[in-house]
């Protein structure tokens, strides 16, 4: 099992990459809205992603169950 520091050191760059992909996807959506002068008819997927990030931003997760919570959240919202 990895130490706390080793866990961060091992996975930080991959997590950074994944967050950048999410940011770019949301930018891509905004650019498409700008190009087409209209939003998606159904924006529930966008709201679902934003809500997921709110879950991740909560300061404490005593059960270390972020992934489980996100799976439940996505099941409910998309």
């Amino acid at each position, binding site marked *: 099992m990895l130490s706390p520091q080793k866990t961060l050191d091992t996975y930080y*760059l*991959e997590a950074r*990459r994944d967050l*950048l*992909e999410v940011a*770019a*996807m949301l*930018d*891509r959506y905004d*650019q498409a809205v700008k190009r087409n002068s209209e939003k998606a008819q159904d924006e529930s997927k966008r709201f679902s992603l934003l809500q997921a990030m709110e879950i991740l931003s909560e300061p404490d997760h005593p059960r270390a169950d972020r992934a489980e919570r996100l799976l439940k959240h996505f099941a409910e919202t998309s």
Partner: protein
Amino acid sequence: MQIIQPHYHAIARTAQDYERMAMSGVVAVCEPAFWAGFDRRHPETFIDYFAQIAEFEPTRAAEFGIRHFCWVAVNPKEAENRELTQEVLRQMPEFLQKPTCLGVGETGLHKSTPNEIESLQAHVEMAMKHDQLVLIHTPHLSDKAHGTKRVLEVLAGMDVNPDKIWIDHVEEQTIESVLDAGYWAGMTLYPVTKCSPRRAVDILEKYPRERLLVNSSADWGPSDPFTLQESVVEFRRRGHSLQDAVEIYHNNPCRFLGQNPKWDIKPIIISEG
């Protein structure tokens, strides 16, 4: 579709990469000199390395019908050794005369130290003196924004032709300043630490494409030459035409590299029927 891989470190890759690249439409690769994973101590090591990429590697690529070109330079990570840098620079003009050598690169910055900046200036001066193209590396991750700014400041203080300079590894936070200054900008696609194929296509959709190059670099670290093809597929899947893809992934490299007469691959126009 014919693809040019403008930045590729072939000596770190297997023949199987060449074979698969050939099967996926790659017609030419360009290999800048780079860091070996450790700091070399002897100028002779560089000279042998330059000979490897200027003389031997083209024969390996040719086995698969791929043209191989190279660039020569002291990598910024090794610029801290000033004596070594000066000696290698002294011997570099011989290699600029090689039939497949396209210019000086990759020079640039890593930690933006005074010695790195001195080396960058010396490389650019040599390139301009010999009427060569220049390929400039910009730093990784948290050093990128500052390092790119320093590269632009160094170039602004020199007598350079921006048409002949390609600043590589740009990302969202650096591309605008590079293009605004009139240079060519390269996006390097890495699985983790640089731009991604999808983000590269976002950038292609956002900025004028006339001076944009896309490459996978691909070296001995976590990298993948086929991130370039991933971005081609991503570009096409968003509805862009085959000709538009050819313009970016084949013709733009031809336009930049073709400023050196040794590069004889011409832009192509395709018909989609």
